């Protein structure tokens, strides 16, 4: 049994569902929260601070019988852009891809500007995903045009 195999087995395998791998350790609990997994009745296996060649420490979440929608994948990408999404069918990997930051996110994030029309009139939020001059990811509100950093992101 090689090292990788042993590591994988630290969190039980699932028959059908999705594995979210390569989550930075300090983001793993946040990923659980934004996906509302606390209230899920699906079987969930979760490991954190596992050794990772790429990240030093990583988190992994395995959710049985659950396949994520684009909106949910966008949420994961905003919090943990390094994450890998693996879909499992009958213990076999049927799809494996890195999440990637979309150019545009709708409905999933609240604008941090209390005077923004989206907060006052309860309108669907829309943001462009942009980079500042240092290359840091920011969200620019389609309506009030304010940009917010990761630290201000509050999911709906």
């Amino acid at each position, binding site marked *: 049994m090689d090292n990788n195999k042993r590591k994988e087995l630290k969190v039980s395998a699932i028959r059908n569902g999705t594995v979210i791998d390569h989550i930075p350790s300090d983001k793993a609990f946040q990923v659980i929260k934004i996906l509302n997994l606390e209230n899920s009745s699906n079987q969930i296996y979760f490991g954190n601070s596992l050794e990772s060649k790429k990240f030093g420490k990583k988190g992994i979440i395995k959710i049985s019988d659950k396949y994520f929608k684009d909106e949910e994948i966008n949420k994961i990408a905003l919090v943990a852009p390094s994450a890998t999404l693996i879909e499992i069918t009958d213990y076999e990997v049927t799809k494996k891809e890195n999440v990637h930051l979309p150019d545009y996110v709708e409905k999933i994030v609240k604008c941090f500007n209390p005077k923004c029309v989206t907060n006052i*009139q309860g309108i669907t939020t829309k943001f462009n995903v942009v980079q500042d001059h240092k290359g840091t990811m920011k969200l620019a509100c389609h309506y009030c*045009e304010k940009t917010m950093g990761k630290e201000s992101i509050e999911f709906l």
Partner: protein
Amino acid sequence: MSNLVDRSLVSITDYSKDEIIQILDLAEEFEKDQRRQILNKHVVASLFFEPSTRTRLSFESAVQYMGGSIIGFASADTSSIRKGESLKDTILTVSNYSDLIVMRNPMDGSARYASEVSPVPIINAGDGANQHPTQCLLDLYSIRKTQGSLENINIAMIGDLKYGRTVHSLVQALSLFDATFHFVSPESLKMPSSVKTWIKNAGLEYHQYTDMMDIMPIADILYMTRIQGERFPDPLEYEKVKNAYILDNSMLTNSKDNMKVLHPLPRVNEINEDVDDNPKAYYFQQAKNGVYVRQALIAAILDLKL
């Protein structure tokens, strides 16, 4: 038919360089002859959810010089907003009564939203602390008129560069014309990094100063701003900086001959009254230019022939 027809104007970035020039050229025609009865079959709605003297009067004047009718309200107190009506419902209703809606609203982003729900075009006359594109167009008109061109201007912006929406839009617009920017402000009111990123992405230069006198020999345009108390979350912070940058006539001695002083108005005390008689003072003419620019905008959007 021009591509501005039936299009809302929410943010100055909605317009390309050519479209900006198109509006300024048309505004020149209105400066030559302001009383053109070309709007007499139209109704313009003027919805001011918060008070504004000059922007509202300037728009109403623009409509009336062209013979148009104007309906609307000057504050939310007299509208059904008080009864709790949503912005969407107000816009949808008023669009039944008018060909074009001019709107000022205190909510940031309200103009973009209104433009998405409205069947008639919206002109943003200020949405909270966000955008005020017609101010930007009249600033551009004033710069072009006094300097002969908009290209390669050295513009100094002074005062509240953090909260002042007019300077942010003006930076975005002048970036299309290869301006060099000089920002003069107290430390707590410096230009936000998002605006500086915009300049860098346009491959242009900006310089920052705290002493106003440093830019006097360089600037073609001195764009003064009011330090606005209502934009400060902390009144103490406002008290500390409100008198920081006051221009008086003696300070203009070393300025360039072509230099003009602009200000979006109203001023409080940031330009001493002794500047008013200096030929370099241009702020009242600048406000007058606002009417020509708004006439041009309405004419372009409603496809009126001169």
